[in-house]
């Protein structure tokens, strides 16, 4: 046998390894279910005008994309409604910018608080409990050899310089469990289980994704107006006959050959 083969007491197995694993699995199950219970979609608190504005932007985009199916006068009428002098996009939009929305709207705050509470706090608390109860001893062995740089990561409370790096303590085992059970849980729950990593990503760019409020409506109005004015209109019916002739000529050529 190799020199560094430690013999670990089986009592450690019975009383630490298995109960710790079971406890973490159960805790993760609990948080998952609490998440599902608590994350009912918040009641949409948009006013009529805001909804109308968002839909106007969508309509203008559609007009640009499919403008070639309608005759010229109809297109011009619609374009004038949106982008003309007294058009819709020249008026000041009613939607508040997302910063104001975040500050004045309490439901968004409450939502974020709920998500944080049911997600991070039980894990932190559990980490502290694990650290308190199961401190100072080695709990298992990693099956592959690691470089000594991993020593402080895997052996938090132990200061033995000669102990093999493959042995780890309960706190590092707890963290490994947290990360590893994501995969196993995504097998059981088919939906998105990876809630903590999403939350961490969201915390890193807080203003990146605005909440239920739309993005800055003023700039969107300006963009749509400029885009509408930039596009030239061409009715497809006018060139339809020539295209049909082309297609038929090609078909006849292909049949001849």
């Amino acid at each position, binding site marked *: 046998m190799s020199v560094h083969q430690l013999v670990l007491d089986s009592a450690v197995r019975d009383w630490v390894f298995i109960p710790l694993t079971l406890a973490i699995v159960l805790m993760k199950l609990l948080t998952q279910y609490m998440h599902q219970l608590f994350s009912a979609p918040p009641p949409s608190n948009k006013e009529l005008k805001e909804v109308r504005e968002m839909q106007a932007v969508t309509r203008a985009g559609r007009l640009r994309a499919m403008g070639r199916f309608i005759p010229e006068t109809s297109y011009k009428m619609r374009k004038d409604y949106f982008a003309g002098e007294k058009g819709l996009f020249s008026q000041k939009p009613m939607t508040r910018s997302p910063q104001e929305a975040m500050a004045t709207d309490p439901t968004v705050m409450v939502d974020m608080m709920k998500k944080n509470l049911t997600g991070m706090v039980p894990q932190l608390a559990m980490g502290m409990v694990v650290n308190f109860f199961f401190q100072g001893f080695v709990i298992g*062995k990693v099956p592959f050899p690691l470089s000594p740089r991993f020593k402080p990561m895997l052996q938090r409370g132990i200061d033995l310089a000669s102990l093999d790096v493959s042995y780890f303590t309960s706190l590092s085992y707890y963290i490994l469990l947290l990360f590893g059970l994501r995969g196993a849980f*995504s097998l059981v729950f088919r939906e998105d289980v990876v809630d903590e990593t999403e939350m961490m990503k969201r915390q890193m760019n807080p203003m990146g994704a605005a909440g239920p409020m739309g993005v800055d409506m003023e700039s969107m109005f300006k963009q749509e107006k400029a885009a509408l004015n930039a596009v030239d209109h061409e009715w497809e019916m006018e060139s339809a006959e020539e295209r049909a002739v082309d297609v038929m000529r090609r078909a006849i050529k292909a049949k001849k050959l």
Partner: protein
Amino acid sequence: MAPKKQQKGKLDDLINPFALKNNYQALGFLRNFVAVISGIVIGICGVVGWHGFIYHFVSQLACVAAMVLKGCTKPANYFVSWNNLLFYGVFSSTTLLSYILFWMIFYNLCHVF
């Protein structure tokens, strides 16, 4: 197996987004499952050392064989390309970490006791 996505020759590919997403989800699920099971088996066998990871990649390749058996004879029709089928989710952190975790748990339960 998931519905075929259509392909229209020289014109730009018509891809049915729901079918494609469904296919990838099935592949991801299979890969995850195989990672867990192979981790357990390797742990019980007591494999030690870095070559234990080779078994992980072997089992992920076996997933590709399983997909081919299930009906995906031309991967361009079901996934975007051969490379996507071979390498989607093989190096994703969830499968790797699950494999390591279950390998560790069962190795400890059976061999360090």
